[in-house]
C-alpha cells in the first residue's frame, strides 16, 4: 500500500501555470502521476501539458469528481489562500512545495487543516514519492526505486543522497516523505513514522533530521513510550554547525536545550535508534538491521 500517496491519488496542481508548477507537472506526468487538473485564478480554460486549467478548485472538482490530492506551487504571498481553498475542497493530503511562507500564515492553515483531519506536507518541502506508482513533488525520480524502506526527512538534497545509497544497496523505498524545513510544518516525524509502522510494505524506517526544533526529540519520546515496531535508523545533519539564531531569552526557555545535534542524537540513541555518522552509512545500517530480522 505504501503511505499517503499511491495510484489512487488524483491530483490537482495549484499554481500549474507558473514556472515551477508547469515544469514539475511535466515531470510528474512523465513519472506516471495521475494529474487531472490544474488551478490558477484568471487562467481558467487553458491547457498546460494537456492538463485542463480552472480558476478555482471547486470548478475543477465539478468536472473531475475524482480529485483527492493537491500539490501547491503558488508563490508565498498567495499560498495561504491556495491552502485554504484545498482544505475547503476536502483534498487530503495537501503537498505544499512553496517556500518563504510567513510563519503566522502556516500556523493558521495548518491549525485549520489539523482540526479537519487533513494532512498537510510542508511547506518548503520536496513532496512525496511512492515508487514506481506516483510522485507528488519535485524529488528527482531516478534515485528512487520500489522497495521496503520508508523514508521521512526534513531536508531535500540530503534525502536524495541517502535515497540513492539505499537504492544502490538494493533496498529501495516504500514511500519517501519530505516533511519540509520550515519552523512550522504540517505532518511531523511522529505522524509519518506511525503511518510507516502500520504499512505492510514498509520493513524499516529511515529518519533524516537536522538541527533546530524538537521534532527528532519528540520522535524519540514516542518510540521510548511505544517501543520500536520496525527498525528505525536516523541521520542528523548539523553536528558541526554553529548554533542558529536565538530568539532572545524566549527561544532558550521554549527550547530547553533541545534543538542541537547532540540533544537529538542522545534522545534517539536512548530510544534505541542508531544515528549514522555519515549519510553513506545509513543504507548499511538499515541492511544489517533487516538481515538480523530475517534470522
Amino acid at each position: 500500500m505504501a503511505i499517503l500517496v499511491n495510484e489512487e491519488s488524483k491530483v490537482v496542481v495549484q499554481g500549474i501555470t507558473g514556472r515551477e508548477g508547469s515544469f514539475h507537472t511535466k515531470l510528474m506526468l512523465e513519472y506516471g502521476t495521475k494529474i487531472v487538473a490544474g488551478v490558477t485564478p484568471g487562467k481558467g480554460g487553458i491547457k498546460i501539458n494537456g492538463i485542463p486549467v480552472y480558476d478555482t478548485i471547486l470548478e475543477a472538482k465539478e468536472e473531475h469528481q475524482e480529485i483527492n490530492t493537491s500539490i501547491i506551487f503558488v508563490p508565498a504571498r498567495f499560498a495561504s489562500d491556495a491552502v485554504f481553498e484545498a482544505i475547503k475542497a476536502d483534498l487530503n493530503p495537501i503537498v505544499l512545495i512553496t517556500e518563504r511562507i510567513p510563519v503566522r500564515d502556516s500556523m493558521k492553515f495548518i491549525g485549520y487543516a489539523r482540526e479537519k483531519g487533513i494532512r498537510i506536507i510542508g511547506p518548503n518541502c520536496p513532496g512525496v514519492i511512492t515508487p514506481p506508482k506516483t510522485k507528488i513533488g519535485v524529488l528527482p525520480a531516478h534515485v528512487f526505486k520500489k522497495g521496503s524502506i520508508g523514508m521521512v526527512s526534513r531536508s531535500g538534497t540530503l534525502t536524495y543522497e541517502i535515497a540513492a545509497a539505499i537504492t544502490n544497496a538494493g533496498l529501495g523505498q516504500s514511500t519517501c516523505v519530505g516533511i519540509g524545513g520550515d519552523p512550522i510544518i504540517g505532518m511531523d516525524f511522529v505522524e509519518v513514522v506511525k503511518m510507516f509502522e502500520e504499512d505492510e510494505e514498509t520493513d524499516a524506517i529511515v529518519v533524516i533530521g537536522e538541527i533546530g526544533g524538537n521534532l527528532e526529540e519528540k520522535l524519540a519520546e514516542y518510540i521510548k513510550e511505544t517501543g520500536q515496531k520496525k527498525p528505525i535508523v536516523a541521520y542528523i545533519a548539523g553536528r558541526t554547525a554553529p548554533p542558529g539564531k536565538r530568539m532572545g531569552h524566549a527561544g532558550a526557555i521554549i527550547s530547553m536545550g533541545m534543538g542541537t545535534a547532540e540533544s537529538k542524537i542522545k534522545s534517539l540513541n536512548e530510544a534505541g535508534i542508531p544515528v549514522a555518522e555519515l549519510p553513506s552509512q545509513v543504507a548499511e545500517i538499515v541492511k544489517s538491521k533487516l538481515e538480523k530480522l530475517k534470522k
Partner: protein
Amino acid sequence: MKLLEHESKEIFKREGIPCPKGFLAFSPLEVKKYVKKLNKPVVIKSQLPIASRMKAGGIKFAETAEEAEKVASELFKLKINKFKVSKVLVEEKVDIKKELYLSITIDRYERKYVYLASTQGGIDIENLAKMHPEKICKVHVDPQIEVKPFDLIYITNKLGLTGTEARQFREIAGLFYDLTVKYDCELVESNPLAINGKGNLIAVDARMIIDDNSLFRHPKLKKKLFEEELTSFELKAMESGFSFVELDGEIGVIANGAGLTMASMDSISLFGGKPANFLDIGGGATSERVKTAVNLQLKHPKVKGVLINIMGGITRCDEVARGLVEAVKETGIKKPITVRMMGTREEEGKEILRKNGISYLETMDEAAEEIVKLVKGIKIGNPCK
C-alpha cells in the same frame, strides 16, 4: 529580522505600552545633552542586536550629566561579540520595585503562539527556566482563535498579580499579542517588565524579532542588516543570494541544499578536518553563480582547500562544472579542490572537469576524506603558515 531596543520601544510606545522616557544618542556629547534634558539619574544602554547586554557590560548607570558623558565614552569604545557600540539609548532610570518577565513567541511543536511570563524577570531568566520551570507560566494561543481575556486572567492569577498590577499586566500582554499579529513577530519580549515605585508597569527592556518571510506585508519595515554581524565575505555571499556562514576551520564547503551542506561539513569533521564555512548555492544554480561561489572560496585567506558536493536535481552538474572551471581559470589561484557530483547531467559535468584537468571522486565520503588529506598536506609543506 531583529529590531534594536530603541526601534522596538518606538513601536511599543506607538501601541500604548509604557516605556521609560529616553533619547537615542550617537556620541558621549549627545548623551550629556540628553541627560541634562532629562535632569534625572539615567541608564545608558548600548544598542546591539544581542540578548544579555547587562551581563556583557553594555549597560551603564550615571547620576549626573558629566558622569554620563564619561561612562558613555567608555561604552562607545566597547565591542561585544562582533559588535561595536555605535549608538546608545539614554533613559531615565526607573525606580524598579519588582522585575517581571513577559514574552510571546512561537512554539514550533505545538504550532501555536506561546506566552511566557514570570514574576522573577531579570538577567537570570534563562537559569530560572532551567532550575524552576514551574516559575514560568506558559499559555498557548491558537492564531485561529487569537488571545482571549481568560488566557490573560489565567496568566495574572498564576503569577499572583492582583489589582492595578494585574490589570496593567493583562493590558500589556494583550498589546503584545496585537503587536505580534500586526508586525508578524517571531518574538516580542520585555525583560524586565518592571513594576515601578508608584506601582505601575513599565517596559524597561524591549525586544522584537520580525518574521523575514513576512516582510512583503510590511513595506515600512525595511529589511536591514546588522553589517557588523557579517564578515565582508558573508556580505558578498549574501549579495549573491547564497546562504553563507563563516566558521573557524580551513576547508571551504560548497553544496546545494542546507541539509547536504551541513552533512558535507559534518563529514569533513569526521575525517579529521575543519570546515571554514558553509556555502549553500541553493537549487538550480547557473554556472555564473557557481563561479561566484568558487571565487569567494578561493579568494578567502582562511580557505586552504574546497570541497564541492553536488546532488543534481534542479541543479545541473554541467553548470556546476562550467562555473568551477571558469573560476579556477579566472582567479589563477591554485588551492586543492575535490569535487563530487551526482544526478542531473552528471556525465556532461564530469566530461567538462576531465577536459580541464580537474579530478573528481565518486562519493561524498571519498571527496571529504581526500580534501582533508590534501589540506593537511599543505600544512606540512608550509609549517610557518
